[in-house]
């Protein structure tokens, strides 16, 4: 085997290897910052971002219009400051709503933008004022349980009051009412 032919084949091997590495890095590993064109960035503050991560999609009407660029903690008002990069082609009015949604029941979290009706459009560096936090499942369940519990309690005390008033002029020992048991 001639040495120049060997060199050629080794060159082919190395070139293929580098191409495969770039393929893995770009296409599979998603090293590219985004495949959006020109972007403008706006910030939004959330009390709770849940499981939102940088590079999560920003969607409007279900269409990806941008990506989450960075997430920082604002120690002045103890809120999460999320920077969004939105495609230049999609302008949004200043009174746009930014909500954190979950894709599916247990899927990844993303930001949904709902356009308002203002004539003025968001510019680079602007801040979205109207935001809605991520729904934390534990919080929701505990709120639900609380409301259920207080509902039944209300009902119980109401029944008792009715029963007492129905019984007639029997004076009650305490104004505040005894516990229901």
């Amino acid at each position, binding site marked *: *085997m001639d*040495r120049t032919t*060997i*060199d050629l*084949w*080794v060159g*082919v*091997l*190395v070139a*293929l*290897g*580098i191409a*495969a*590495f770039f*393929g*893995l*890095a770009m*296409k*599979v*590993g*998603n*090293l590219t910052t985004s495949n959006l064109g020109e972007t403008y960035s706006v910030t939004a503050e959330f009390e709770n971002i849940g499981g939102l991560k940088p590079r999560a999609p920003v969607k409007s009407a279900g269409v990806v219009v941008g990506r989450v660029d960075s997430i920082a903690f604002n120690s002045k008002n103890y809120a999460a400051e999320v920077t969004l990069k939105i495609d230049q082609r999609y302008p949004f009015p200043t009174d746009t709503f930014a909500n954190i949604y979950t894709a599916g029941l247990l899927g*990844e979290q993303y930001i949904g933008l709902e356009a308002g009706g203002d004539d003025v459009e968001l510019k680079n560096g602007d801040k979205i004022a109207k935001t809605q936090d991520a729904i934390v499942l534990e919080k929701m369940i505990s709120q639900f349980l609380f409301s259920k519990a207080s509902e039944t309690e209300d009902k119980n005390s109401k029944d008792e009051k009715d029963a007492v008033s129905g019984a007639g002029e029997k004076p009650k020992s305490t104004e505040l009412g005894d516990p229901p048991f």
Partner: protein
Amino acid sequence: MPKIILVNKLLSGLRMTGHRVIEQVWRLGAGARLFFLTLTYSAESFRRPHLIVREMYFTGVMSLIIILVSAFFVGMVLALQGYNTLQKYGSSESIGVLVALALIRELGPVVTALLFAGRAGTAITAEIGLMKATEQLSAMEMMAVNPISRVIAPRFWAGVFSMPILVCLFSMVGVLGGHLVAVAQIGVDVGAFWSQMQANVEFADVTDMLIKSFVFGVACTIIALFEGYDAPPTAEGVSHATTRTVVISALAVLGLDFILTSFMIVA
């Protein structure tokens, strides 16, 4: 009299065990010495890069066919098996993540290293074993040519450079094979296949893959070189050495894989 025979038998068994253990420890030390000698003499082989390029042709380019074809089939079978299970949970769109992560994190480096040990490692062992058996290495020493810097070091670096390239190719071709089955044959959405993959495969996974492939490349090549260098200069000795190359390389790769993975998962 029979008592003494019994005691002798027991003692000989014990002696054999001890002999084998000492033999293995001796070989381990000799292997480590060869490794360090290779590293010290590699500066000389870097001054003559055409030697490394020549060996890369034999270890890297010649392994290309087996690596690419296996990768294609591994990717296809992963997609087929993964789809079968994932669709039970209604998440067949995650098939891209499954194929890519399985290939990049584990199967790419490990299967490539095993194939490499079988294809290139055995060739290295047999070649060096025969060079020793036909006294070519001694002849080199007679001519004041250091066989380690002229024969061992170029093969070592060729193996170390080839392995990451082959692993990258294996993973990429495997993903393409998975794409062929999942998208073209089964009919998973193309966009979902790639976007789910991109959302869940980190660049750190790719660098971990490269670290693994580098370590496996060093391990497989030095084992093959040592077995050849250490082989008794007989036909039988070379054949035993070739067998041992495959066995020890496979065990070393799987053991190292566990250790490296345990570091990478924690980090």
